[in-house]
C-alpha cells in the first residue's frame, strides 16, 4: 500500500518545484527536496517511494519544466491520477517513466492520506472509499512506460514505438 497525496485543480509546475529552486539555481542534487515546499510543506520529508498523487483538472500546468517531474521521479512517485493533465507535464511523465492516468472519480473517491493501491493491470486506483477507474493509456505511451521511460526505450529499440 502507498499513501495518496490529493491536490485540487490546476496544480502548476511552480507549485511542484518553485522556479527559484530549479536545479539550475540550486544544483542537480538538491532541487527535489523543495518539492511542494510552498504548496504542501513537509511533503518532501514525508513522501515515500510508491506514493500516488491524485489531482483534479489540468494537473501540472504552467511551464515546460521537466525538473518538476524529475523531482517527483527522484522521490519515487508510483503514479499520478488526475481528471486531466497539462500536455507538457503529461509527456514529461511518460518520458521519465511515471505512469499518468486520467480518472474522473479518483479526486472525489480518494482522501488525502488514504492508503491506496495503484493497480495498473486492473485499471483501478484502490482506496478505502472505493475504487477509482483509470482511463487506459495509448499503447504508444504504455510501451514507453514499460521500458521505464523514453530514453530507455530508444536505447533499446533505436526509434519511437509504432504510431500505426
Amino acid at each position, binding site marked *: 500500500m502507498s499513501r495518496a497525496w490529493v491536490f485540487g485543480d490546476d496544480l502548476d509546475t*511552480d507549485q511542484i518545484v518553485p522556479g527559484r529552486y530549479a536545479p*539550475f539555481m540550486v544544483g542537480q542534487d538538491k532541487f527535489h527536496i523543495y518539492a511542494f515546499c510552498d*504548496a504542501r510543506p513537509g511533503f518532501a520529508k514525508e513522501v515515500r517511494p510508491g506514493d500516488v498523487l491524485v489531482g483534479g483538472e489540468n494537473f501540472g500546468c504552467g511551464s515546460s519544466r521537466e525538473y518538476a517531474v524529475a523531482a517527483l521521479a527522484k522521490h519515487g512517485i508510483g503514479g499520478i491520477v488526475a481528471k486531466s493533465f497539462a500536455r507538457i507535464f503529461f509527456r514529461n511523465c511518460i518520458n521519465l517513466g511515471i505512469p499518468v492516468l486520467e480518472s474522473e472519480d479518483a479526486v472525489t473517491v480518494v482522501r488525502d492520506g488514504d492508503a491506496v493501491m495503484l493497480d495498473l493491470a486492473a485499471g483501478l486506483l484502490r482506496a478505502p472509499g472505493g475504487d477509482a477507474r483509470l482511463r487506459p493509456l495509448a499503447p504508444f505511451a504504455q510501451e514507453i512506460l514499460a521500458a521505464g521511460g523514453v530514453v530507455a526505450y*530508444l*536505447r533499446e529499440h533505436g526509434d519511437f514505438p509504432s504510431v500505426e
Partner: protein
Amino acid sequence: MPVHSRWTSSIRSFGSGSLPKTLAEKILSRVAARDAKVGDLVIVPVSRVMVHDSVVDAVIAGLRDLGKERVWDTTKVAVFVDHAAPAPTPVVADSHRVLREWVRTQGIATFYDAGEGVCHQIMVEEGYCEPGTVIVGSDSHSNSYGAVGAFGAGMGATDIAVALALGRTWLRVPESIKVTFTGRPRKGVTMKDAIMRVVREIGTDGARYACVEFHGAGSLPQGDRITLAGMTTEMGAKAGIVVATPEAPDWLFPDHGAAYANEVTVDLSTLEPQIAVPPRVDQVVDVSEAVGQPVDVVFLGSCTNGRLVDMRQAAAVLRGRRISPEVRLEVVPSSRRQFEDAMADGTLLSLSAAGAVIGSSGCGPCLGRTGGVLAGQEVCLSTANRNYRGRMGSADASIFIGSPYVAAVAALTGVIDDPRPYLEATDAEFDDLVARRRAERAGRGAASVRSGDRARELMVAAARSGVAAEIDD
C-alpha cells in the same frame, strides 16, 4: 472567477478521402507526409530545435543517456542564454559555462549569449521559424512561433534531447479552436488585452492538447502576433498559429469548412483593457474592476510585451514625467534589436528619465530568477504572461497582468487604473488624475530620491539632438 465558454460540438467524423483541414492538420499532414487527422499520432521531422540555458544540463544529460554524442544537425539547433542572464549566482554561471562548452564542442553556430534577448523574440525576428513546419523548444512559450505560421510546441528536456538526437518528435494531431478578431481596438487597448480576453473566455485548460487558430490577426504587426501566439500556452494549448501572415506560403491556410472544437469571437472595437488577477491567468476582469489596486513594482518586458512598440506605449504615458517615487519600474527589452531601436528613437531615454530601471535584454524578472524579484506582500503589475504564486519571487507576492499602457499608468500613480483617460487628457487634467490616484495609495513603500531629477532637461536635450521629439504610439 474564471469564465469558461461553452464548447460547441467537438465531434468530428472522418470518412474516406480528405476532409477540410485546420491549419494544424494541414501542417502536420504535410510534414508527416500522410493524411493526419485529429487524434492521430504522428512522428514528424522538426525544422529547428530551440534550447535555452535553464534546461541545458538536463538536455545534455538526456543526449548522453541516449548514447548520442552529436546533435542530428548542428545547423538546425538554436541555443539561448536568456532565462537567468547575465548569471545571477555562481551555480547559474557554472551552468552557462557548461552550456558554452557544449555549444562549442557540438559546433552549433546559432548561439545567442546573455543579453541578446529572449529566445522566442530572436527566433521569430531573426527568421529562425520556417512557416508551415514543426519547431520544438525547451520552453513552454515556444507556441510563439505560430506568429509566423510555424507549428511551435514547448516540450520538456528529455523530449528536446530526443528531438536533438533524432531530428524528429511525436505529436498527437490536436483539435483546433478558432479565435476570430473583428473590429479595431480603441486607443489605449492592445492585442495584449485581446489575448487576455480570449484566455478569460477559454480558461487555463480550455485549449489543452489543442491548437488555437487565430483569424483576423494575420495583418497585425509581427510583435502583436507573438503576443497572441505565445499566450496560447496559458490556455494549455499545444500550439497557437496565426492565419494568413505575410510570412506564410500559399498552401498555408485552413480549409473552408474545417471543423473546430470551439469558436470564440472577440470584437476589438468594444474591448476594455484587461487585468489578470492573481494567482490565475484566466481570472481576468475589465480594468474598471481593478481600479485603485495598489502596486509596488511594475515590470515591462518578456516575450509577451518587451518590444519597441510596448516600450513606446509606456513612454507615451511617461514621457516628460516621473513615476511614483514609491514604485519601482523595471523595463527589460525582449531583444538587443528592440533595445537598440528603443535607444535610437529616444524611448529608453524617456523611460529612464521617468525613473525606470532598464535591464539587459532577456527574460528578466518574469520567472523570478534574476532582475527585480518580488518580496513577500509585494504587489506587481507585470506585462508578462503568468501570475502564479511564487512566479516572480516570493510565494507571498501578488502579480497582476496587464498591457504596457496599464503598466505605465500603474508606475505613474502606484495603483491600477484605466489608461485611456490619461491618453486623452490635457496636461492639467493628467496631473490631476495622477495626484488623485497617488493620494489613494498612502502608507506603502518609501519614496525614493531620483539621482538627478533631470527628466525634462533630458527630453529637451534629446529633442535638440534630433532624437524622438515626438513619439507616436
